[in-house]
């Protein structure tokens, strides 16, 4: 296997002295689908926000695609090719599906106002329109391409949210609870979509998820967090029989397991 695309080393974050994530280290290979699970309050979301630069780390390093991205802002991380999606359907509600996707494809090129003056903007803008059409087909949104995003059913809004991220041509996707708010059929569809994204675009995915069954179905490897610490890093089968993981889920809030 080649050099990992994400390398997290000793990542720590404290909120006013209270540790939320402690000394977490893991790597993620290219084109891997890696799941992150853990009981409520285990630090999954914090870990996610640390990797994407939404909040600064107290200690530790993050490397992405051979570059040290520790301390980078979310937009810098995004422009390097690591794009995240959100737990709730996060789209531009008042714009059409097509425009949503176009923005996803274009905004990386015009990250700063001064970049609007570059000659390549016209070319990027044309490419963004094409990319939007491509994704409308890929995601099966042809029949609603001209509808306002906010008028779509929730499941489709989540798919559109993923589409915006995909439009930005990421090297790596980070997905925050892709199945949250979806019914079982939609959850299955989402899982298949993630697999298709890897197969057709060669994009690896790190996903945080509550739905353990979905993670085990979709991911080739799973890491488990508890109280901000990494307690397991293994294949789905091994995870299911890991006593420490069972303890974490049964000992804490059982509601999610």
């Amino acid at each position, binding site marked *: 296997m080649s050099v990992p695309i994400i390398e997290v080393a000793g990542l720590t974050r404290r909120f006013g002295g209270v540790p939320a994530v402690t000394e977490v280290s893991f790597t993620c290979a290219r084109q891997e689908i890696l799941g992150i699970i853990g009981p409520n309050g285990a630090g999954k979301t914090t870990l996610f926000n640390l990797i994407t630069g939404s909040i600064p780390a107290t200690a530790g390093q993050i490397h992405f695609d051979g570059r040290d991205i520790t301390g980078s802002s979310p937009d810098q991380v995004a422009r390097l090719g690591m794009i995240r999606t959100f737990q709730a359907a996060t789209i531009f*509600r008042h714009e059409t599906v097509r425009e949503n996707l176009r923005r996803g494809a274009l905004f990386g090129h015009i990250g700063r106002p001064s970049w*609007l003056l570059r000659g390549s903007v016209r070319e990027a803008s044309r490419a963004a329109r094409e990319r939007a059409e491509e994704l409308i087909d890929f995601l099966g949104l042809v029949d609603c391409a001209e509808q306002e995003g906010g008028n779509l059913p929730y499941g489709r809004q989540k798919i559109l949210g993923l589409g915006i991220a995909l439009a*930005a041509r990421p090297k790596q996707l980070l997905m925050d609870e892709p199945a949250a708010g979806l019914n079982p059929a939609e959850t299955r569809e989402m899982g298949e979509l993630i697999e298709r994204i890897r197969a057709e675009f060669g994009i690896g995915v790190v996903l945080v998820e509550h739905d353990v069954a979905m993670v085990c179905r979709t991911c080739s490897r799973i890491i488990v967090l508890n109280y901000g610490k990494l307690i397991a890093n293994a294949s789905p089968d091994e995870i299911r029989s890991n006593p420490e993981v069972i303890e974490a889920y049964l000992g804490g809030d059982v509601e999610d397991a």
Partner: protein
Amino acid sequence: MRLAAAVLILVGLAAWPFIYDQPFYVHMGVMMGLWVALALSMNLMLRIGQLSFAHGAFMGLGAYASALATMRLGIPFPIAFLSGGLAAASVAALVGPIFLRIRGVYFALLTFAFGEVVVLTFVEWVEVFGGNNGLFGIPKPSLFGLQMTSRPAFYLFALTFAVLSFIAVRAIYNSQFGAVITSIDDNEMLTRSIGIDAPRYRLAAFCFSAALAGWSGAFYAHYLTFISPEAFGFWTPVNMVVINVLGGIASPWGPVVGALLLVPLPEILRDAKEYQVLSYGILLMIFLLFLPDGLVGLARRWRGRWRAARSAEGRSAAGLEQGKREKRAAA
């Protein structure tokens, strides 16, 4: 066809003072041009979702900068005028990175305090700004040695300034820049997650808005040839907001319509200034309560209704269904 109509209207707008040279009406035309530009600068701020009370100060900075540049440094008018806007934009660029981190009510209060500090500086630093008495004898604009003295000439200047401001702001809204700032206002988290450096975009909008206010101030100074700090206090940005609310915030036409309607009001009710202010207040309340999209919004709704009446009837049922779905999605 539309272009021809626009040209015809513009020619008409430009020509009337030369045919009907009534000082009072021409003056009103000049003030309308000024307030169109000022209201457009506030529209940019409202577009990024921030209510700024610092815009009176930015106007003042432009006015004093241009006036002092011509009076004290003998800089030719065109350069002084340009430097007025740049002075305001530079101050905005200086304070913006800090101010723009703050949102909503707090931003409004922060800019309010900043505006007061700037105006108090004009009052207190008498040697430079002339204190409460302000500056007298600011030279009238001149270009290539020709001084602009006639009122219609001023009116042409004002008209050009307003039209250029409008074109610039509209171009911004229709450009990729416009798409970015609407995206940021709509959903900043998402916009940043796909690679937009939101603080810089917000700063750019803030600086451009300040520059527009600064140029308006410079124009105001050289038109009246007299400025004093009180013109740049709290009520100036409030007026800009009033114009926007009445005209409608969602389109650059809003500030234009608002200014054209509101600026003549003081003149119509000239003998009773209190009634003018009273009608401002009452109009504002009525619009906020019943016409939150302003006059432009109202016009659009009427046009939409007219179109809807002509198209198929079945759409209303589809719309209802859509509303239901939306509710379910939100739940």
